């Protein structure tokens, strides 16, 4: 077998492998709140995101109840960045406990701790994100068969990496 033929076979093998991997990539084109959060934070500061953060801070100080946040609610096919005033997320960042490298890991670990016996939980949506200073808050939906909860997870930036911890939960239909 000559070198040129060898190389062609090798390139084809790479293409087949990457083709199968790319087929597994998360579906593209869905609404992704992160981009919307980026827009809020970088081009329109002082509007919704910062207003919500300021309200949360004041409530924290006033009531000493942890962190009370009205999250930006997004959903596919509807207004992509709409604050649902009727719903609130009480995300209390944990000051101790396991730290995870991804929000999905943190949310799933928290789901498993809250719901022993849950089988094969999957993160199905990232619903809302807030970023402020070195803290990031996400609302993540975790689903498994007839189980569906959202979890507030909090990330702390440590040396250019984010360490995630679990937060409080709520029912998907609540």
């Amino acid at each position, binding site marked *: 077998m000559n070198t040129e033929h060898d190389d062609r076979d090798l390139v084809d093998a790479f293409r087949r492998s990457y083709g199968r991997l790319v087929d597994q*990539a998360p579906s593209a084109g869905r609404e992704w709140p992160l981009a919307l959060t980026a827009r809020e934070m*970088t081009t329109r500061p002082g509007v919704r995101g910062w207003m919500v953060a300021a309200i949360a801070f004041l409530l924290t100080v006033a009531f000493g109840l942890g962190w009370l946040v009205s999250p930006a609610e997004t959903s596919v096919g509807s207004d992509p960045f709409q604050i649902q005033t009727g719903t609130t997320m009480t995300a209390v960042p944990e000051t101790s406990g396991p730290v995870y490298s991804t929000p999905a890991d943190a949310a799933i670990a928290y789901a498993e701790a809250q719901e022993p016996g849950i089988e094969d939980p999957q993160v199905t949506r*990232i619903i809302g994100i807030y970023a402020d200073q070195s803290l990031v808050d996400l609302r993540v939906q975790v689903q498994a068969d007839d189980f569906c909860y959202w979890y507030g997870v909090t990330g702390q930036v440590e040396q250019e990496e984010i360490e995630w911890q679990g937060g409080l939960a709520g029912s998907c239909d609540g």
Partner: protein
Amino acid sequence: MDDESIFRKNQDDLIRYATVLVGPTRAEDVVSTVVVLRILARKRLQDLDEPRAYLFRAVLNECKTRLSRRRTHLSIGEAGMVPADDPEPDILQAVLELPPQQRAATYLVYWAGMTVVETADLMGIRPGTVKRYLYLARRKLKGVLDEH
């Protein structure tokens, strides 16, 4: 072009790139982490000369960080990686065992169809280094193919 437009224009490519590097279940986490860190740093993508290249480099760096934490290679047995009945599991496993830089280079050149120079620009390295990555990756895969 504003940050949101830049992100939306590149997000599909970035998620596929991250999928090849860390697998589908972590791809979105990687891409979101890269953008969140940028937001937290109060830096705009639109201020960069080459925001697309920045995003690709940041995704590769984030993937390398995560893979180095694991101290193990990816494997096709991982949830969501590829179907269990993959027709060439040993070839795919060999690809997954390549260092991230070699996987990135081979993906961009052999799958995405970029030239060596374009790949070098996107990865922030010299064309000669891309060629070396391609050579090393081909050599590794050749050993597996020869056993077939």
